[in-house]
């Protein structure tokens, strides 16, 4: 047996899940080492950015990290609206009730600032235990002895063994994949989130959104502005910028061969947004990342041996209708995993940590939030095409229209019900058709003119910071059939664009023409999309390499 450096606990990833786990471990006096692949914590991370503290949650971020809201967050978000859009007609619902349901507070965040703030504290706390936090280190697999997981291997360091390994390495978790707990096969298991951070001076935000210095607002968008792709848009106010983005079902995005950056542009240039931009648009950063859909992939038993998965790595990302809750669940799971280990250790049975963690997820009600039984019951019925088309024709009929008119108030109410949202099926009906019909029937037209010009894709890439390295993604099958979807679905690639990651090429071989794709990983923003939609061998770049987000 080779001697490896050993820690009681190793945490991979310093996002909210890893930070919460490490802080809780440190509080229990567990010797903890945290490893993060970004050159700085947060430099790899993207989120929409509303972080919730739920009243019922056993762990919240500000409870683990006092001063979080003042030090790491942007504006508190109190108001919450959804706009149903049909062409230029818009019907707005106030989602105040669902937003405040079980919510202690909710703040907008930018991940670079948030995660690096957390990392400083995590480093202080874990150092006390004899560990610490190291950035620029990428875990590349699990270390096994006699078939059992005993540690983690890295690009930059010798393998390290631990009594517990907490994989908080986010979506596309290489450790979860190595353990055989997650695969990246089905597009329907994921969303793709794309986002722009847009400059806006604080005074302008206050005035245009009618908020005070320490107030903020959230706007959601759904309807027919996304070419029929299932999903929606969001706009959140930060201190001196806006986070505007889209979240789409990856299967829908793939099938429709939609270009994510164009869908984002449809939102940015919609007349409804003119009132806020007032003709000015300066984009600070373009970013993207996959988002797991907990309803489908939240792992019911997210552990194997000494390995415990938390947060996106375990698929614990809850889309409650239009409300996206990933960061808060990652915090809760991180806390519970740590607590489970500390408890197992005090009983002298560290092996039990995984089972205890799973029990805690269930007894604290986390699992039921992530995978509601109601959803499982309704899904198969309503996601089938038959139901879909019956639904659509019903909506189009006179009865449907009358119904919508009649139930105006009721509709707004049902959007505000966590129970109803929990069972909304993922069909075009609920994402596109219903909101569009609502707007058509109830909406008022917007007459503003929105003439902002979002940057072209090559400029968006050009504005990002990269530390390029050898390719971290390999296309295994470069035929168009196998991997062509990535040309459109990759947020930094597009049809007829030579400067992206995936490019469609016509190659002549032995006299006949063939469509192929080629890949250059340099513009890659590491979103994970092509790991699912193309035939690739997909890894993250080595520590500190690749894209560096400044906002996140």
């Amino acid at each position, binding site marked *: 047996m080779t001697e490896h450096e050993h820690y009681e606990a190793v945490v991979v990833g310093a996002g909210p899940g890893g930070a919460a786990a490490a802080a809780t471990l440190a509080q229990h006096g567990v010797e903890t080492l945290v490893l993060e692949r970004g050159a700085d914590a947060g430099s790899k991370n993207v989120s929409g950015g509303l972080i919730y503290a739920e009243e019922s949650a056993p762990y919240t971020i500000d409870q683990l990290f006092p001063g979080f809201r003042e030090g790491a967050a942007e504006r508190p978000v109190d108001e919450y609206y959804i706009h149903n859009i049909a062409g230029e007609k818009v019907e707005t619902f106030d989602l105040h009730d669902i937003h405040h349901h079980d919510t202690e507070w909710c703040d907008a965040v930018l991940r670079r600032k948030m995660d690096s703030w957390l990392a400083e504290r995590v480093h202080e706390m874990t*150092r006390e235990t004899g560990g*610490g936090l*190291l950035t620029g280190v990428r875990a590349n697999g699990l270390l096994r002895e006699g078939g059992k997981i005993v540690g983690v291997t890295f690009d930059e360091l010798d393998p390290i063994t631990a009594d517990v390994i907490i994989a908080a390495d986010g979506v596309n978790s290489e450790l979860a994949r190595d353990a055989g707990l997650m695969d990246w096969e089905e597009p329907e298991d994921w969303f793709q989130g794309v986002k722009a951070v847009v400059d806006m001076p604080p005074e302008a935000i206050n005035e245009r959104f009618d908020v005070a210095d320490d107030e903020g607002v959230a706007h959601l968008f759904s309807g027919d502005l996304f070419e029929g792709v299932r999903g929606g848009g969001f706009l959140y106010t930060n201190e001196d910028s806006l986070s505007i983005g889209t979240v789409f079902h990856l299967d829908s995005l793939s099938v429709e061969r939609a270009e994510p950056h164009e869908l984002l542009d449809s939102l940015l240039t919609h007349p409804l947004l003119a009132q806020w931009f007032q003709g000015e648009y300066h984009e600070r950063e373009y970013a993207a990342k996959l988002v797991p859909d907990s309803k489908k992939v939240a792992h019911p038993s997210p552990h194997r041996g000494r390995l415990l998965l938390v947060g996106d790595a375990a698929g614990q990302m809850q889309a409650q209708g239009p409300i996206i809750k990933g960061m808060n669940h990652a915090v809760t799971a991180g806390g519970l995993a740590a607590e489970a280990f500390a408890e197992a250790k005090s009983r002298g049975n560290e092996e039990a940590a995984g089972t205890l963690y799973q029990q805690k997820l269930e007894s604290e009600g986390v699992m039921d939030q992530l995978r509601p039984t109601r959803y499982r019951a309704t899904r198969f019925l309503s996601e089938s095409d038959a139901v879909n088309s019956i639904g659509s024709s019903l909506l189009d009929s006179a009865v449907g229209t009358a119904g919508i008119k009649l139930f105006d108030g009721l509709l707004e109410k049902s959007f505000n019900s966590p129970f109803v949202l929990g069972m909304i099926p993922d069909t075009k009906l609920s994402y596109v058709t219903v909101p569009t019909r609502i707007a058509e029937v109830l909406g008022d037209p917007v007459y503003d003119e929105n003439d902002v010009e979002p940057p072209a894709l*090559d400029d968006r890439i*050009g504005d990002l910071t990269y530390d*390029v390295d050898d390719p971290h993604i390999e296309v295994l099958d*470069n035929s168009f059939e196998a991997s062509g979807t990535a040309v459109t679905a990759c947020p930094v690639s597009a049809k007829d664009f*030579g*400067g992206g990651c995936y*490019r469609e*090429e*016509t*190659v*002549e*071989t032995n006299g006949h023409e063939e469509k*192929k*794709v*080629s*890949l*250059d990983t*340099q513009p890659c923003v590491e979103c994970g999309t092509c790991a699912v939609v193309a035939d690739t061998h997909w890894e993250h770049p080595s520590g500190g390499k690749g894209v560096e987000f400044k906002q996140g």
Partner: protein
Amino acid sequence: MPEIDPTEHDIAELGPKIKDIDDEQELEEMLAMEKGGEGRAPVITLIEDRLEKVGGEDEDADPSEADLTDMTIADIANMIRDVEDIEVLRDILEREKEGKDRKGAKSQLEKKINNLEEDDEDREEVEYVPPEEKHPDLKHPTADKLYVEGTVDGEYRDMWVYCETQQGELLDVSREMLGKTRELMDGYNDDYDEDEDVIAVLIGDGVDDLTEECLAYGADRVVYHDDEQLTRFQHAPYTEIFCHMCRDWEADWRDYHEPRYTVFPATNNGRDLSALVQGELDSGLASDCSGLYIESADISNPAKTGRPGETKTFEKILHMKRPDFSGFEYSTILCIDKPHRDFHPQGASVIPGSFEIPEAEPEPEGEVVEHDLDLPEEWFQTTVTEYDQLDEGVDLTGHDVIVAMGRGIDRVDPTKGIELGLELTDQFEDAGFGLSRGVITASYEFGGHVEQYITEERQIGESGQVVEPELYIAAGISGAVQHKVGMDESDTIVAINTDPEADIRDFSDYFIEGDLFEVLPRLTEALAEGKLGAAIAEASDD
């Protein structure tokens, strides 16, 4: 009644339990119970220890500020038990005199002061026993070293820098070290009102060409040994030569025993040399440092001061900062003389990239000294029979002309496109052939004869090479910023592109809107006839 009756428990059980008891009263009672019972000695000690700890906690008063009027004589006696500073004790005594003026208290204090004063006088130097006598059981490899004897209170001067070279050029780290040591020695000369130098050491074949450069980067003097046998770094001759330089008492430019400081690069060869040289010079080495500064240091280690309990200030100490293995912390390493043995030169090896490369002085002044020594054959018993040079690759800088091809070549046939580019390149006397990244990462299948050209070594741009030729011809390249930064300093840029809106148009001098498969052959032809200028001007839209 205490919660725990010690007489009912084993000592093993009591240990952890007693730790949690904070009440003095309770402990006293337990002590009494144990004494009244079996009176087990370890249990009594355990309780007494805890009592002392608990009792001690609230007596933390600072002796120099404690209010004596509140204290009993016993309290005062207790308080001063650990006070070693005579000044503090005198101050307490004064305050007692002004205050309650208790005889008992004063005598306690006076007695303690007397004791300490005597102690001070008694404190003698530690007797020196040479290591050979002290540890006869150990080997003493330095015992028979010619120079070790007598290195006590030696004379040391100057900062010596080993300037490593590669392929007849200084490594960047050599320049970095010269810059840093220059700065250190300027500060040193100011602070200590001295006039000591930065000495650059060059060893190798053809290093005499580099002496001027060493002066330009900050050396006052260069000592070099140039010999064709020294083409490759080898342990024996390099170490021997370096050490001989350090102790070359014959040399007329110097009048000291050995260097005060030595600095080496923490490269593969530099690490080897630093360890061998510092060992041979019988001093220490702080390896892999990332920070250096010179300051005095207060040391109380009796091994260094010679008198226990005494703090001595050592001047002119090189502070060598190095990261520990985790990278979390730094240690600062000092190399300090002992009473009976000097540790000089104070030596460090420095991680490349730790310091900035300074601006080179255009007309440097300084002395250059050739080191004079015959190199005996036995230093060359090892010979290098084989070596591999890492491929240097294609260098596109320095050409008059660059012809670069982009993804526009796939419109007809990529192989043909490359051929056309190569043909054009051949027409110039001094031209290089470059590519956009778009071509290199494409899935095109090239014909065997042009495939060898499709390598990353020919990439121009942000993550490739940066070129500034007189003429840059870009065919089928869109002009992405990442490509632009690699070529837009070229004198004249000619772009050939079918798309009149292509970004490259914004920074081209001539823009030819057209299919490269037609335009390139025409340019090649015009060039063969010596009419390139005219052809470009005619075809260009700008």
